[in-house]
């Protein structure tokens, strides 16, 4: 890659500055060049977030039908799965799994709710609410 070909496609970095690329100058010497981003990277990153957003939408759907608890939403929104949430909360995985059920979650002690709320850095009230998210994007990605 030549310095003059270093892509400047704004995207995932947004307004957070630039990143470093290695590229050669006209004399073939390697230089450090800054880049605002590169379209293929932006696309791959978007793809990852599309999946996450779809999972969040699925979780909300599950909560609306009364099957899943709000914990499912917060877990997904924080990019966690049952295993990781078990690591953070100190609960066994099977217990986290149970807490994802609406009927079990509704009977949880405040102390348990607090434990989850603290992980997500929110209040217990916030833990119990799920926003009305519009389902964004193509559901068949």
């Amino acid at each position, binding site marked *: 890659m030549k310095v003059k070909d270093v892509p400047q496609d704004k995207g995932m970095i947004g307004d957070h500055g630039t990143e470093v*690329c290695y590229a050669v100058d006209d004399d073939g010497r390697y230089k450090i060049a800054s880049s605002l981003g590169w*379209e293929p990277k932006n696309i*791959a*990153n978007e793809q990852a977030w599309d999946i996450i957003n779809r999972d969040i939408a699925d979780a909300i759907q599950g909560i609306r039908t009364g099957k899943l608890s709000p914990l499912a939403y917060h877990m997904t929104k924080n*990019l966690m799965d049952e295993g*990781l949430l078990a690591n953070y909360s100190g609960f066994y995985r099977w217990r986290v799994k149970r807490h994802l059920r609406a009927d079990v979650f509704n009977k949880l002690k405040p102390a348990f709710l607090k434990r989850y709320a603290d992980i997500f850095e929110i209040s217990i009230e916030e833990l119990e609410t799920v926003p009305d998210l519009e389902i964004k994007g193509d559901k068949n990605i």
Partner: protein
Amino acid sequence: MRIEFEHKQSAHCESGVTSNLLYHYGLDITESMAFGIGAGLFFGYIPFIKLNKIPLTTFRCSVGGIFKRVSKSLKISVKEKRFRNQQKAMSELDSLLEQNIPVGCQTGAFWLPYFPEAFRFHFNMHNLIVVGKEGDTYFISDPVFPDIVTCSAFNLCKARFAKGTLAPKGRTYILEHVPESPDLVIPVRKGIKAVCNAMLKAPIPIIGVKGIRYLAGKLEKWPEKLGDEMALLYLGQVVRMQEEIGTGGGGFRFMYAAFLQQAASVLEDDNYLELSERLTQIGDKWRLFAVSGARNCKKRARKRDSFPGMAQMLRECADLEEQLFKDLRDIVV
């Protein structure tokens, strides 16, 4: 209190931390030099390690490997520590800072508030250097950012004790003794040999050039085996690992090519310049692979972007790299 610390932005966190820490102690080792001596270049497609439920593709050696190899080769003594108690981990950090010692930390990326939203994944292999504290705020030289950043004690502690795969467990490392002007010839040779071995002589066929061919074979069959949707997810993850995770472009190939140019002057041998040029071309090929992959993910694939077509591109990369590392091995002796 803030340590006077020269922060240089780097492409990759671990090689960047290594370079910046050494510079602080008077050793001018650039990021690419650290990457080369640390034998950072690698390839692996590891089906039994999953990242986001998708097999891991990696273009660099194991976490911590670069730093470890550089400090060993240059005879730098390092003090490394992991913690169980979070409070203790933070107070020990503070007392080191008070002694004017910059502290390298392994952290997770998810809890660092200064990270752009789009990068905040549960990724526990991030490295940064804490260089000061005022009140509740830490000053951090995070090598992938242009300037010194700040972070609250609460968030830094959370990041140092992130959970999940390769949890950092509060790991810190400081340099205790750095030799004044070490000879680079042997470290450079050793680093090159290690990379040649990893790329050519791996005992299992999922690593090195064999690993690239293995990925090519798998990739070809993804659409029929996994269905179109999953195939694109797998593909997207390869592209992300190649380009997104601070590689300096082309899955670290450009950074290593920069190192080979430096090796030419350290070893006083112009043959390395030619090899560097060849590696740059290989890096360009990897970039083309990423372009094809992204077109697929965006559903804008052209004819040559088909899965067999991309597998063919990978095989070309593998062939070229095989020849390159053989030639490199022959001249480094």
